[in-house]
């Protein structure tokens, strides 16, 4: 259990997806280059807002093409791509993160955090009881530390403000 991950590290990763990624990055560089060419280069040359971005963009595209063509397989620090349930778990947690950001303006910090923690804890194999304990206590702790202790203004959400704020 303790050293389960240690062996994964040295697994040489296939260059799977490497060339495609390089290609996408190079294409993005071309887009950036086009955008920067629209900006003024400045007088004297190089002092305008577009000059340095254009310089960066040219180098970006050049290195992008070089890396794409050469496509040298490099040992990745992680093992192979997650498959099956592992991939599902990652997708689910990413979805939860997106849901957090989307619902925060409406539900506010307390409800959003509670729901997020509940579902995350369930994902990490907690019992319903334990998950509920985490989901209830953590938002309260956040409120004590951030709102009371540090006097930071938290996003209470439109629901909360309509109910209590007036």
């Amino acid at each position, binding site marked *: 259990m303790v050293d389960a991950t240690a062996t994964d590290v040295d697994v040489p990763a296939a260059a799977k997806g490497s060339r495609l990624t390089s290609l996408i990055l190079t294409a993005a560089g071309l887009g950036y280059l086009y955008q920067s060419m629209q900006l003024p280069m400045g007088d004297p040359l*190089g002092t305008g807002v577009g000059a340095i971005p254009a310089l960066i963009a040219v180098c970006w595209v050049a290195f992008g093409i070089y890396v794409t063509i050469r496509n040298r397989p490099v040992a990745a620090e992680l093992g192979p791509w997650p498959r099956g349930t592992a991939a599902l778990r990652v997708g689910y947690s990413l979805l939860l993160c997106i849901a957090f950001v989307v619902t925060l303006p409406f539900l506010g910090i307390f409800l959003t955090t509670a729901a997020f923690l509940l579902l995350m804890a369930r994902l990490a194999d907690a019992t319903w009881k334990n998950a509920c304990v985490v989901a209830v206590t953590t938002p309260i702790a956040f409120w004590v530390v951030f709102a009371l202790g540090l006097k930071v203004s938290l996003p209470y959400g439109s629901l909360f403000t309509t109910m209590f704020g007036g």
Partner: protein
Amino acid sequence: MDLLAQMLGGFAVALQPVNIGAALLGALVGTATGVLPGLGVLGAMAILMPITVHFSAVTGLIMLAGIYYGAMYGGSTTAILLRIPGEGGSIVTTIDGYEFARKGRAGAALMICAVGSFIAGTISIIGLSLFTTVLADVALRFSSPEFCLLALLGGLTLVRITGNDPARNMLMLLIGMALATIGVDAVGGDTRFTFDTNTLALGFDLVPITLGLYGLSELFHVVASNNGFPRADRVRLRDMIPTRVEWSRAWPAIVRGSGIGFLIGLLPGPGSLTATFASYGVEKAIARKYRDEFGRGAVEGFAGPEAANNAVATSALVPVLALGIPFTPNVALMLGALIVQGIQPGPLLLSQHPDVVWGLLASMYIGNIALLALNLPLVGIWVRLLRVPQYALIGFIFAISFIGVYTMRSSYWDLCVLVGFGAVGAILRQIGFDLAPLVLGIVIGPIFEKSLRETLFLSGGDLSIFVTRPISGTLSALCVVAVLGPAIIAMVRRNAIRAKHA
């Protein structure tokens, strides 16, 4: 002997109970903010600054300084235990510090960092006490052309030190530099690459990007593998104390890191990130026996950068104390604390208010001892943090990252950046692109652009300014060496091998 008398006077100020209390309180708050991801040291200092009004100038300053270098200590803790950098300066520590912790030596790693920070703090405070005025004059000889070349030199050398593919690193570095150009331009205040949206005009802030690329992507990895963070089921005293071999490898790295950090801290810009990368690069370059361990938990790989990080925090005070010019927002805030008390910081500070300056310096000696005393017992507690049930820990770290990032500038956009870069970081890591150059690009990109454009304004577009000034000429030569050097070395080696075979 005059210096000695002033130093003793400083200690008399710093050793007053109220000042010791302020140093301890500041160190504690700083450690806490360093440990909490997203909650920046700058925010903590700003929030506590109003409190300092009720104290004397020295006491307030001592407390703020305590927060400042306390955060440097705290930032390494999450980097080592969870692979989440508490602040920019501890990104490098996530490489070898985390791997070291995975070998079951988390306690020892934290101990080395605490002691290393203490040594670095002490070395640089001595440097600060002795050479403040001289160093400030040297720092002024660096201007836009020199900063531009330093950024270039930094980029050219640092792409070689992490990961194992300089070309890919260069690509990442350039993308980072490009990302930093989105939003409001620092020179003229114009917006660019925003497609006329308010959202993109906000730009990409370093904190959500760093936290996303490193913190969130690691959390996704943890969720996927279901193995969790390195466990520390039994915390024995033996596991918390570094071995003799570890010590003998750590301390030279600490001394070198202190020197590097001290010099880089004198210059404007986000010194801590640059200094930690530089220290890591030096350690990797001069390593002989343990070279293969880098990236797999080499002691030098986190002892040096951690020391450098702390040395930067101290030497960044030089331009303020000697000239009254704050180069970093943190230091500007400390300057603000003086202004609030009616003390005008500037070149005359040392002669008009020697009690304040020497009191601060002396308090930093004491603050460093306080931090060491505070952090050594904490090591045991932090390591036990990993025994918190995985299901609670993962959600908690996600949630606190969200809140920390949001409160920084009340922006939902920053949360989108955080999540987006979390996903991008996870993918890039999977494919074998190193993330460190991307973050570095975001940091040095603005310095490079700003100083290059300032230089061209200054010289009226004449590029010869890069070689005609003595310091810039030297730096230009070094840049050429950085580009051609590795190629020449490779060629010489190839010839040597060929000669042998012939």
